C-alpha cells in the first residue's frame, strides 16, 4: 500500500466511523419515537435547551461555514465574521423572540405543526396554507440540492476522485434518508447536537493547530498584512456598508422562514428553554465563525494557493495538520451539510404532507407513514437536481435565502397587527415572491437597485420592502373576510 493509499483509507475510515456514530444516535432516538405525526415532526414539543440550541445551530450551518465562508475570507478578507455577528448573533436572536416565541405560544395553544397551518387557520383559508407551503418548497428544494452537491464534492476532494461525485451525493442522501425516516425530529435533533458539538471542537482544534505551527495569531496576522494589506482593514472590495447590512438582514429574516428553522419554533419543551437559548446565540456565533473564517483569511498570508473552484480550508489543513485531522474537518463539513439537509427533508416532508397532500386528498389514515414517504420522495427529487446542475454553491444558496426572506415581513405583520387581512397578506406574499423570482431568474432584470442617498441594494431587500408595503396597504384598503379569525394571534397567550 502506498502512502497515498494509506492516507486515503485513514480519511475514508474517519468519515465512515463518523457516519456510523450518527446512525447509532438515530437508532437510540427511534426507540423513543411514538407513531404519531406530532411526535415524528416535532418530537412531541419536548426539546430541552442544549438540544434545541444545537439542533437549530447545526441546522443553520451549512457548507458555507467550512467552504464558501473561509473562501470569501481568503479572497476578500474576514469581514464576513461581522456579517455573521449581525445576522445570526443579533438579528436572528431578536427574531427568535419576535417570531419564535410568539409562534411557540400559538403552536402550543392551537396545535400547529407548520407555518402554513398557522396562517391558514388565522385567515380562514386552506389555499393560503397551501400557497405558503408551495412557496417554501420551491425555495427549499434547491437548497437541499446545494447540500447534497456540497457533500458529493467534499467526498470527491477527500478521496482525490476515487469516489465520484454522483456516488458521494447518492451515498450521503441514502444515509440521511435512513435516519430521518427511522427517527424523525428526535433523531434529527440528537444527531444535530452531536454534529454541532463536533464542528465546534474540530474548528477550535484546527485553529490552535495552525496557529501553533506558524507562531501564534500575531505572526499569522502579520503575514496576512504583508500578503494582502487591505484584508485587515474593515471594508473595501466586496465589503461595502450596503453589502454587509443587506446580506445580514435578508439572510437573518430568510432563515426564520426556512421550514426547518421555522418548525423549530414549535418544538421547545418549555418557555424556559426558549429563554435560555435566546441569550446563547451571540456566544455560539462568536465561538464558531471567528475561528472558521479567520483560518480562511490567514491562509492568504501562509502561502496557500487555491486553484479555481477549490476550497481553502482543506488545503490549509493538509499543509499544517496530519492527514487524519484534515479528514476530521471534512467529516465536520459533511456533518454541517447533513445536519442542515436532514432537518430540511423532515420539514419539507411535513409541508408536503400536511399543507399540500392533506388539503387535496384529506387527512391520511397513517400520517406518520405518509410523512416518511414524503421524506424519501423529497430527498431523491433534490438529488436528481443536484446531479444535473452546475451553478455555484453560493449562488444557489443565496437565491433560496432571498426567497424565504420575502415571506418574513408579511408573516410578522400578521403576527402583530390585528388589522391584517387575508387579501392583504396574500397580495404581500404574491407580489414580493413574483418580484424576487423574476429578479433572481430573469437575466435582464437588475440584481440590485440604486436608490438616492442610501445607495445600491440587492433585489432580496427591495422585495422585502415591497412585501411589507403591499401587505400593510392591502390590509388597510380591504375588509376582512367573514371566516377570518382575527383574535387567534392575540388571545390567551401565556405560558407559566
Amino acid at each position, binding site marked *: 500500500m502506498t502512502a497515498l493509499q494509506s492516507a486515503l483509507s485513514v480519511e475514508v475510515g474517519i468519515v465512515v466511523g463518523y457516519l456510523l456514530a450518527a446512525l447509532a444516535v438515530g437508532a437510540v432516538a427511534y426507540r423513543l419515537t411514538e407513531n404519531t405525526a406530532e411526535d415524528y415532526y416535532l418530537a412531541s414539543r419536548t426539546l430541552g435547551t442544549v438540544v434545541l440550541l444545537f439542533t437549530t445551530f447545526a441546522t443553520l450551518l451549512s457548507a458555507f461555514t467550512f467552504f464558501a465562508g473561509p473562501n470569501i475570507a481568503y479572497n476578500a478578507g474576514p469581514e464576513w465574521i461581522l456579517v455573521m455577528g449581525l445576522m445570526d448573533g443579533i438579528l436572528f436572536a431578536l427574531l427568535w423572540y419576535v417570531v419564535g*416565541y410568539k409562534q411557540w405560544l400559538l403552536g402550543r*395553544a392551537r396545535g400547529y405543526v407548520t407555518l402554513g397551518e398557522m396562517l391558514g387557520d388565522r385567515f380562514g383559508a386552506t389555499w393560503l396554507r397551501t400557497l405558503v407551503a408551495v412557496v417554501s418548497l420551491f425555495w427549499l428544494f434547491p437548497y437541499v440540492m446545494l447540500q447534497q452537491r456540497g457533500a458529493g464534492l467534499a467526498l470527491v476532494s477527500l478521496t482525490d476522485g476515487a469516489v465520484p461525485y454522483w456516488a458521494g451525493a447518492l451515498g450521503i442522501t441514502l444515509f440521511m434518508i435512513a435516519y430521518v425516516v427511522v427517527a424523525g425530529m428526535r433523531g434529527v435533533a440528537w444527531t444535530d447536537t452531536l454534529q454541532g458539538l463536533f464542528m465546534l471542537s474540530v474548528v477550535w482544534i484546527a485553529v490552535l493547530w495552525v496557529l501553533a505551527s506558524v507562531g501564534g495569531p500575531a505572526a499569522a496576522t502579520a503575514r496576512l498584512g504583508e500578503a494582502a494589506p487591505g484584508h485587515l482593514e474593515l471594508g473595501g472590495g466586496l465589503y461595502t456598508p450596503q453589502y454587509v447590512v443587506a446580506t445580514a438582514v435578508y439572510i437573518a429574516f430568510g432563515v426564520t422562514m426556512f421550514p426547518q428553522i421555522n418548525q423549530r419554533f414549535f418544538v421547545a419543551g418549555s418557555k424556559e428553554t426558549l429563554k435560555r437559548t435566546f441569550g446563547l446565540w451571540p*456566544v455560539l456565533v462568536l465561538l464558531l465563525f471567528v475561528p472558521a473564517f479567520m483560518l480562511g483569511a490567514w491562509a492568504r498570508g501562509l502561502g496557500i494557493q487555491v486553484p479555481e473552484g477549490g476550497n481553502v480550508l482543506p488545503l490549509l489543513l493538509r499543509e499544517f495538520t496530519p492527514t487524519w485531522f484534515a479528514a476530521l474537518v471534512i467529516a465536520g463539513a459533511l456533518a454541517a451539510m447533513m445536519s442542515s439537509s436532514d432537518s430540511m427533508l423532515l420539514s419539507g416532508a411535513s409541508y408536503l404532507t400536511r399543507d399540500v397532500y392533506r388539503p387535496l386528498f384529506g387527512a391520511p389514515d397513517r400520517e406518520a407513514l405518509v410523512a416518511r414517504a414524503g421524506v424519501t420522495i423529497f430527498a431523491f427529487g433534490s438529488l436528481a437536481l443536484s446531479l444535473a446542475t452546475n451553478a455555484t454553491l453560493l449562488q444557489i444558496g443565496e437565491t433560496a435565502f432571498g426567497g424565504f426572506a420575502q415571506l418574513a415581513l408579511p408573516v410578522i405583520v400578521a403576527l402583530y397587527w390585528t388589522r391584517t387581512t387575508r387579501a392583504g397578506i396574500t397580495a404581500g406574499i404574491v407580489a414580493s415572491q413574483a418580484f424576487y423570482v423574476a429578479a433572481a431568474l430573469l437575466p435582464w432584470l437588475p440584481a440590485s437597485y440604486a436608490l438616492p442617498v442610501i445607495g445600491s441594494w440587492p433585489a432580496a431587500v427591495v422585495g422585502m420592502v415591497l412585501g411589507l408595503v403591499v401587505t400593510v396597504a392591502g390590509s388597510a384598503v380591504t375588509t376582512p373576510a367573514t371566516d377570518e379569525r382575527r383574535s387567534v394571534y392575540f388571545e390567551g397567550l401565556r405560558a407559566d
Partner: protein
Amino acid sequence: MGERSEAVLWSAVAVVLVALAVPWFLWDDGRVVAGLPAWLWWHVGWMALAAVAFRAFATRAWGVGIETDQPGGGGRA
C-alpha cells in the same frame, strides 16, 4: 415600569445592539491589536455584551409585547 415603557426601553436596547454590531467608526481602519484587527476585538466584545443584554431581557422582561393578560383562553393543550 408599565408594559408600554418596558417595551420601548427594550426596543431601544435592540436597536443599539443592531446598529453597532458592525463598528462603523472603524471603517477602513486596519490597526492590529494583540494579534487581531481592532474591529475583530469590537466584534468579540459586542457579542459578549449582546449575550448579557439578552440574558437580562430573558430574566426581567420576557413576554413583553407578546404575552396577553387574559389567562386560560385559547384552548391550550
